[in-house]
């Protein structure tokens, strides 16, 4: 594996410039949709749901919505977004003919994907706070967690992008990996409501430790166990980040 250099920032800047030119077409996905889900599920379904500890349902799902949509942002950016840039627009080919390397491009894409997570997570946090769904000041750390989460999901997405033959392959990624996590990582239901086997699977899904961490920050319930969740996120991030550097070089430098 070859390391990336500070030049990755040039790729990040390129993506930022494009994003702020086209942000209005992105806004419905990362602002409107999570708010609709939060309110519809929270107030609509919430009227029928009684949680064991008496917490309001909308307060239970708010942290999970932050975590899930931060995940979606990085995942879309580094699957469809990156694949279009790589295969259709040949943007990567143009960039690696300059002093930037394949590794700089991959790092720039991943950190941009993570920035999308940071933006999405922060926007939903602000709105949830406005609805008085965020009791603890520890929630101020959520943007940092969203960014870390973003690096992890962008890295996993980038690894997948570097090995798929066509853009249609992302259907598998979302149907079999991302969407199940949305439902089985403790976003909408406590993990304990699932059968034993699903609970076990939930704990290996990368979204679960993130939901766990963000929920604790929202409620101000800090405990040592959270370090385990953080460690899991960091381990997965380093692993997938490194792998994506290797597989992307294999794909592009032929």
């Amino acid at each position, binding site marked *: 594996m070859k390391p990336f250099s500070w030049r990755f920032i*040039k790729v990040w*800047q*390129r993506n930022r410039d494009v994003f702020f030119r086209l942000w209005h077409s992105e806004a419905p996905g990362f602002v409107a949709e999570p708010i609709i889900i939060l309110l519809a599920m929270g107030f609509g379904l919430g009227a029928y749901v009684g949680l064991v500890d008496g917490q309001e349902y909308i307060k239970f799902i708010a942290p999970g919505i932050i975590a899930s949509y931060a995940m979606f942002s990085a995942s879309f950016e580094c699957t469809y977004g990156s694949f279009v840039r790589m295969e259709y*627009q*040949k943007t990567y080919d*143009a960039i690696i003919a300059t*002093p930037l390397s394949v590794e700089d491009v991959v790092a720039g894409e991943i950190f941009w994907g993570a920035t999308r997570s940071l933006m999405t997570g922060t926007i939903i946090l602000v709105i949830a706070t406005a609805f008085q769904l965020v009791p603890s000041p520890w929630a101020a750390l959520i943007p940092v967690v969203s960014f870390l989460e973003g690096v992890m999901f962008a890295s996993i997405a980038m690894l997948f992008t570097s090995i798929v033959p066509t853009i249609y392959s992302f259907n598998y990624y979302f149907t079999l990996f991302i969407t199940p996590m949305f439902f089985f990582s403790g976003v909408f239901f406590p993990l304990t409501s699932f059968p034993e086997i699903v609970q076990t699977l939930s704990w290996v899904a990368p979204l679960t430790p993130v939901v766990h961490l963000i929920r604790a920050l929202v409620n101000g319930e800090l405990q040592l166990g959270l370090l385990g969740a953080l460690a899991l996120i960091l381990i997965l991030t380093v692993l997938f980040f490194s792998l994506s550097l290797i597989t992307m070089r294999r794909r592009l*430098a*032929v």
Partner: protein
Amino acid sequence: MSIIKTKNLTKKFKDLLAVDGVNLEVEEGECFGLLGPNGAGKTSLIRMIIAVSPPTEGDIWMLGNDLRTYSRQVKAILGVVPQLDNLDPDLTVLQNLMTFARYFNIPKGEAYRRSMEVLHLFELENKRNNHIRELSGGMKRRLLLARGLINMPKILVLDEPTIGLDPQAKYLVWHKLSELKSQGVTQLLCTQNMEEATVLCDRVAIMHQGKILSLGSPQELISRYVGSEVWEIEVNSEERDKTIKEMESRGLDFDKAGDKIHVFHIEAGGQVTGLVDSPEGLRRRPGILEDVFFRLTGRSLIE
């Protein structure tokens, strides 16, 4: 000193030997042409030289530096004009150049100055705020050339720079490339356009099946393989075999070219008199690089 030097440069793909032990030396300040039919290995060779594709075997030195160790430094002084359009469609014309300048770490003010300069050079200033999709094919090609100059490269690597251009734009590009050469910019030009190679290149290498078959100035190659004049003989099919026999007995150097026969290396017109009955069947023209190309790479389709 050779500004580009390769030794035993080889590129293998799964079951294909794309570049087969190429030894090449390009001198500083020259325009060096790479000619060859489709699939000859030109683009594979170029991709290794611009450090985006690792060689399977062999070495490359750019300005005397081993490319494996100094790829970043070398890429900083290279201008690359690719065959396929890889302009950034998410950005405007000017933003394309500014963004590209940033990849080379050129400060913003300087990047703007250079962007306007290269836009002016290729007569694109009034398109600077247009989107890429609003440009014609010819404008995109000119913008690719402009982009390739944004870092004021020492070496310009061009893959089919005038493909798809109308004659006006083609001459504009040729003129600019000659100007750059007179300013000392070394050029490695990959082309299928023999006229382009003759006009622009100091030396050309003819590539076929991954190997360089021959190398020299266009004039040298023409006199070596063709001679200064080519006689084209047109015969009907009944007399064709007879004529060919007669030419063989006279020891002439000729090729069959469709319904014509080309005769090369004619020192005196007398060598071809009497080969055909009517004077219309015999035509004399100067030898050109295309003749050399056909003689070396054959007339059948390669792929």
